[in-house]
């Protein structure tokens, strides 16, 4: 049995698959946090692409769905901490949307952990690094986006 399971998971390793992560950062907190992580030379995986949006609430569910349809293995949405949103309540909307979107993704057959929401402030370069590291680990465990196998 164990051999069989290994044989099944082997192709993933053999292909040299690297997860593609998409990170949406809000302009006011998380993008500055990412910048801080960069200028502080904090080490983290390099397989993520950052898209800056004015607010995490600018991340339309359509963006996330398109990212998965186009083969992203994981989507991370980063915004200001509760009560810290530059636009007062944008991050609350994001939080509600992402909660529901995760349920929807599960219905579509995706593991909902492929979509994650986290709060990263402008001073939290370290948290940005940790979040990326953890998310990368989660996605490596989940394997490639199943839509790529169709």
């Amino acid at each position, binding site marked *: 049995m164990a051999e069989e399971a290994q044989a099944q998971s082997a192709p993933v390793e053999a292909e040299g698959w690297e997860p593609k992560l998409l990170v949406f950062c809000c302009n006011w907190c998380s993008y500055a946090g990412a910048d801080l992580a960069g200028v502080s030379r904090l080490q983290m995986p390099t397989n993520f692409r950052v898209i800056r949006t004015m607010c995490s609430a600018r991340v339309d569910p*359509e963006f996330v769905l398109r990212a998965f*349809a186009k083969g992203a293995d994981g989507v991370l949405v980063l915004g200001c901490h509760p009560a810290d949103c530059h636009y007062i309540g944008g991050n609350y909307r994001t*939080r*509600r949307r992402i*909660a*529901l979107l995760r349920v*929807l993704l599960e*219905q579509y057959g995706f593991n909902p952990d492929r979509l994650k929401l986290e709060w990263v402030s402008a001073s939290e370069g370290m948290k940005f690094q940790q979040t990326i590291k953890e998310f990368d680990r989660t996605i490596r465990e989940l394997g490639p986006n*199943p839509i790529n196998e169709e």
Partner: protein
Amino acid sequence: MAKIRIAQYWAAGCGGCDVALLDIDEKILGVAEIADIAFWPIAVDAKVKDVEAMPDGYITATLINGAIRNSENEHMAKLLRQKSALIVSFGSCACFGGVPGLANMTSKKEILEYVYWHTPTSDNVEKVLPTPHYKVPEGEIEIPVLYDTVYTLDQVIDVDYYMPGCPPTTNLINEFLGMVEKHVKEGAPLPPKGSVIASQKTLCDECARKRTTKKVEKIYMPYEIDIDPEKCMLEQGIICLGPSTRAGCGAKCLEGNQPCRGCMGPTAEVLDQGGSMLSALASIFAIGNQESQLSEDDILELMTQVKDPLGTFYAFTMPASIIKKKVKERKATTAPKEA
């Protein structure tokens, strides 16, 4: 003056679209005046071989309703495309997959096994499933092959116009027939290719209900409360797809005190009607000032009042959505919520 030729074909749909065309009252006489019916299986006796014998582009306009779900649907759509100058994607199933499109939540295998083996009323001891080719003493029988995926019409053939609705309303049909008639009689130009014969706005623009707070407190099923016929459905806690749905139907369901279920599909600039509705609904929850105190679990509890987001937000548009079809993770999720 030479008459134009029209045809209508019924693919994977319920037949309501065919009836909708018959349902345009006395206008049907106007149709007979300008057009000959070249092919319309539900109404006139023309066979597929008659269509095959027609020269290319012989039919002026063909209305195809229903999604594309089996080999026959696909063959007929391609044949009619070849024989017609104009193809109209008629009704929600042809435009977006419609209700049959929800079959993309599952697979051909699961559907056949459930229907032929596992329904409570099935007694199929030999485990017989439909086979496309079958030999009987009298000869060979062929039936169409069911596809694993439901497709929209424009995923299979080139489409000139779209007329959404379940079914398209009499007004929209008359509008289109009027355009074709004007084109034939007076040479008026037809709308540009790819036009959707409906409004460019959302249904809320057409809806007569009063909106005041634009907030929703709690989600209810329509049977759980007495619905106020004057007040916005969403404000009463009934999920209504109006904000993400194209107008053009005249908000008939809302006139009948029922929420919109989204049969007119997304508005022009939106790719994913469900995503659009999800976004809208999540935004209008009234939580008040204490939201920063709520935990992630509180939020999840709040949002999972929406019991079936996929089935609710994509009731008519799953094959036309961004994801299109259920996927299968290589590693099974630890605790699947949905069966």
